[in-house]
């Protein structure tokens, strides 16, 4: 028995370089049930983080009663993240939406599907009837539906309504990963494989608290660290996360300065001859310009900008520069910060100049934050086109037009698909009049929440929300559609390292709740979308038909699924795309021959200026004659749009705890997870706390130019001058008449990276003041993870107790 709340990572199974990661099968069953009580196991994978851990759902008496990791799967070899062990209980929460709701004045009232869909369709047809009608529609989707659902939604938007205004909350989590890979390698698509952990001799984690965001990947890294010949480890993070504590070298950089750090590290690596001249000559473009820019970043200047010791910058360069099989992982500390795309490209540059790509152990994970974000990107349900096509390449648009049998100009391709923050801006200005939000909660997760609430509450804006629960966003909707969730519907989705899994339906959804795919197909049918020959544009009736259609759309593109079938995904391990007739078992690593997807006819973008987002044209791109070489892009460091001043002297960064996911829509309804992290907190450095007269557990006010919140203080190992607030906590579980501001995004700034358009959640200027004494009661922050208290604080440890007892079997 193991308490996976007290120990989220479980027991170590050490292994050495080149060995297979040992199997460890994690399991949690409801109450006193044993495997003998389980009627059947239904194959699935995790939807509470982006790692893609394969698991089986236990079903007894028609209900989900637990989960068990799949030993056969290449990603997790049986292990399960604590969010997945306990999170399925939210499916049974008594407040699930079971009937559609429609607005009646100030109230939402229950209704039937015909009435709810009738309202949406009537409004849609009315809006579509005038010139430019397409421009009144906005879709804001997620990274948590299934591939089939995104593809259907993408076709509805692009070929049915003809609107470019569709994006996912993936804009908040993974847009920079996609943008950086497009910029460096020509298209999206993760070069590496999770098995690179098995082979590497150094791991660099760039703004990536993997211990809390992808626990199973961290288990793999820890198992290598506890085995023979462990990899060296470098962590870049302003907080003392478990990763930072484990690392051999921790650079606690000032938020928003990543580009200066990357430039400085590259300078050292080039100057000290730790780069691969042959690889650079044969496989990259832009080395001279790269050298020119990074030359301006000697260690002393980097130390000044980033506020880390110059000697540590040199040590980091040596760790990176002398490794022989380097693995890098990148996440929100880079993606949600100032100059995001440029910083993420800096990591790509590091691997390109060292030739550390496309072979075992030499890999890059430009991570995702959500389980199915990869599919939002691939299928074009966000700011991309289906099949990782280039919106500026007319031949690519013609392929889609042929596939869907519509006119080329039906598909909006005059500019890139509209990014999320601009969709909300158009809604604010009134030109978007119908906003359809699926499986995401912008009223808690977008920056500057008072503005977002004001937009969603506008009378002229018709808001449709499709979700499991009456979220803070659904409260403001005109129509709420009850959706089925994981375990209640069938579909596929893809992990960070391109591994495709199937998730089969285990049980029926509650009440009248429907799979998201069924809702989209119903809308398409009611709208009567037609192709060029007057036939239904969307003829599909179920997920497998959509998957087969998607395969055709993916054919010949980097994300080629044509060799995958539902049958092939059932029973064994997940399969990595591209998977084709020639490569029926999938493809473990991309770019193994040093040839990248930069051919002008194949690439996904003609490129951007990283400082402004200015787009380069096709002739300009062709003139570079990429010939399969990767691009080395960099720019000079520029300070963030918001830096501390006298009124707001501290920097705010936001993030996650291991126990909660996003806005707690599910994890907040799983008792063990919620008890471990029940309430918001704010982390302070002991020096700042002493200066402000704040002690552990004291109530603290945090305010920015946008708004203020209250939270109890955790004195932690965060860097001086910076405070951290988790972004999970909204208001759904507070008394509606007595809501105390506590959402981190009341404080954050509306600003984004010029290329990836990812909002800046890591760099807001705030003021901090004590409001009330904690009287010795510690803050509700978990003692596990980045929020761990200082060693001598005497805070009782976070434990799960008897109801959190799980098993973990080694084979």
């Amino acid at each position: 028995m193991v308490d996976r709340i007290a120990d989220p990572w479980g027991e170590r199974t050490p292994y050495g370089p080149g060995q297979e990661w040992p199997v460890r099968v994690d399991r949690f069953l409801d109450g006193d049930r044993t495997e003998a009580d389980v009627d059947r196991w239904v194959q699935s994978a995790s939807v509470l983080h982006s790692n893609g851990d394969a698991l089986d759902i236990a079903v007894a008496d028609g209900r989900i009663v637990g989960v068990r990791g799949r030993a056969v799967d290449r990603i997790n070899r049986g292990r399960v993240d604590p969010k997945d062990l306990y999170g399925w209980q939210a499916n049974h929460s008594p407040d699930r939406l079971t009937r559609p709701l429609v607005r009646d004045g100030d109230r939402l009232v229950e209704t039937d599907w015909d009435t709810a869909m009738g309202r949406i369709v009537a409004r849609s047809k009315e809006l579509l009837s005038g010139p430019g009608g397409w421009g009144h529609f906005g879709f804001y989707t997620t990274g948590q539906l299934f591939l089939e659902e995104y593809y259907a939604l993408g076709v509805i938007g692009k070929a049915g309504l003809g609107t470019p205004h569709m994006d996912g909350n993936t804009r908040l989590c993974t847009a920079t990963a996609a943008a950086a890979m497009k910029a460096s390698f020509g298209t999206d698509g993760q070069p590496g494989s999770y098995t690179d952990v098995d082979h590497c001799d150094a791991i660099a984690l760039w703004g990536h608290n993997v211990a809390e965001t992808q626990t199973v990947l961290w288990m793999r890294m820890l198992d290598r660290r506890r085995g023979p010949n462990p990899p060296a480890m470098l962590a870049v993070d302003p907080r003392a996360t478990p990763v930072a504590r484990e690392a051999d070298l921790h650079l606690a950089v000032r938020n928003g300065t990543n580009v200066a750090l990357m430039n400085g590290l590259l300078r050292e690596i080039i100057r000290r001859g730790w780069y691969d001249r042959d690889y650079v000559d044969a496989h990259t473009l832009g080395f001279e310009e790269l050298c020119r820019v990074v030359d301006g970043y000697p260690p002393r200047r980097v130390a000044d900008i980033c506020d880390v010791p110059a000697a540590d910058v040199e040590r980091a360069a040596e760790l990176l520069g002398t490794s022989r099989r380097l693995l890098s992982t990148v996440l929100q500390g880079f993606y949600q910060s100032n100059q995001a795309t440029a910083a993420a490209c800096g990591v790509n540059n590091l691997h390109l100049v060292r030739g550390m790509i496309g072979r075992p152990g030499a890999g890059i994970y430009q991570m995702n934050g959500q389980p199915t974000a990869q599919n939002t990107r691939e299928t074009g349900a966000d700011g991309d086109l289906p099949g990782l096509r280039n919106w500026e390449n007319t031949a690519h648009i013609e392929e889609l037009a042929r596939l869907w049998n519509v006119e080329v100009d039906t598909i909006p391709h005059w500019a890139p698909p509209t990014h999320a923050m601009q969709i909300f801006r158009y809604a604010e200005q009134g030109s978007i009049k119908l906003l359809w939000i699926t499986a995401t909660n912008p009223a808690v997760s977008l920056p500057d929440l008072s503005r977002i609430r004001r937009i969603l509450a506008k009378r002229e804006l018709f808001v449709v929300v499709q979700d499991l629960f009456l979220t803070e966003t659904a409260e403001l909707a005109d129509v709420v559609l009850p959706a089925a969730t994981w375990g209640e519907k069938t579909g596929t989705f893809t992990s960070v390292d391109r591994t495709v899994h199937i998730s089969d339906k285990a049980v029926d959804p509650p009440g009248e709740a429907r799979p998201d795919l069924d809702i989209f197909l119903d809308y398409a049918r009611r709208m009567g979308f037609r192709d060029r020959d007057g036939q239904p544009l969307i003829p599909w009736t179920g997920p497998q038909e959509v998957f087969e259609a998607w395969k055709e759309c993916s054919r010949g593109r980097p994300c080629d699924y044509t060799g995958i079938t539902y049958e092939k995904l059932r029973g064994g391990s997940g399969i990595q795309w591209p998977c084709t007739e020639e490569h029926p078992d999938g493809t473990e690593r991309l770019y193994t021959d040093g040839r990248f997807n930069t051919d002008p006819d194949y690439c996904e973008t003609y490129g951007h200026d990283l400082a402004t987002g200015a787009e380069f044209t096709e002739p300009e791109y062709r003139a570079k004659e990429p010939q399969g070489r990767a691009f080395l892009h960099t720019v000079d460091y520029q300070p963030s749009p918001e830096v501390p001043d006298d009124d707001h002297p501290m920097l705010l960064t936001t993030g996650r705890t291991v126990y909660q996911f996003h806005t707690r829509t599910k994890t907040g309804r799983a008792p063990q997870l919620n008890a471990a992290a029940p309430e918001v907190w704010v982390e302070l450095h002991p020096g700042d706390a002493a200066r402000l007269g704040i002690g552990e557990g004291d109530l603290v006010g945090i305010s920015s130019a946008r708004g203020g919140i209250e939270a109890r203080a955790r004195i932690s190992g965060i860097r001086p001058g910076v405070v951290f607030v988790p972004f999970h906590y909204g208001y759904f579980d507070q008394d509606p008449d007595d809501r105390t501001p506590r959402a981190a995004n009341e404080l954050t700034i509306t600003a984004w990276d010029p290329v990836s358009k990812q909002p800046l959640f890591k760099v807001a200027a705030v003021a901090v003041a004590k409001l009330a004494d904690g009287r010795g009661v510690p803050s509700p922050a978990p003692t596990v993870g980045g929020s761990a208290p200082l060693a001598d604080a005497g805070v009782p440890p976070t434990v799960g107790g008897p109801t959190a007892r799980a098993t973990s079997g080694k084979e």
Partner: protein
Amino acid sequence: MHLAHYLGLLHRAQVNLADAFRQVADAHGDEPDIEHLCQQQAKRCDAHAEQLHPFATRYSEDAPDEPDRLHSQLFSGTRTGGIGLLRDLQDLYLMAAECDIAWTVVGQAAYGARDEDLLAVVRRCEGETAIQLKWLRTRMKAAAPQALVVAD
């Protein structure tokens, strides 16, 4: 030698463009990318003007009188709303285009004057002006259909 006049023209065009970028940034604070990038580009224009200044001073010593109608006024204040934003960006585009062609002209003259230092400044700055044009075009292309066809 008339180079001083064209240096003066370019210098003033950069100062005017910096000022216009700042006015547009202030007027369109509800478009955060416009505000931030216009402020950023205003600083670039400041830097261009600063780098031109010593050359304008040096060449003015042996310059004849300034010709008539050398300077033109391209910007007369900001506007509001979606179409107002487009028009403001178009003003910035035209002003940046004036700088762009003036860099070309000054660069040619620098060759003629065998002035390596001035040529180096032109090389450094003209690319940044070209990026300004590109960014403005990119942003206007994305905004135009919604502002001109969709908005009420």
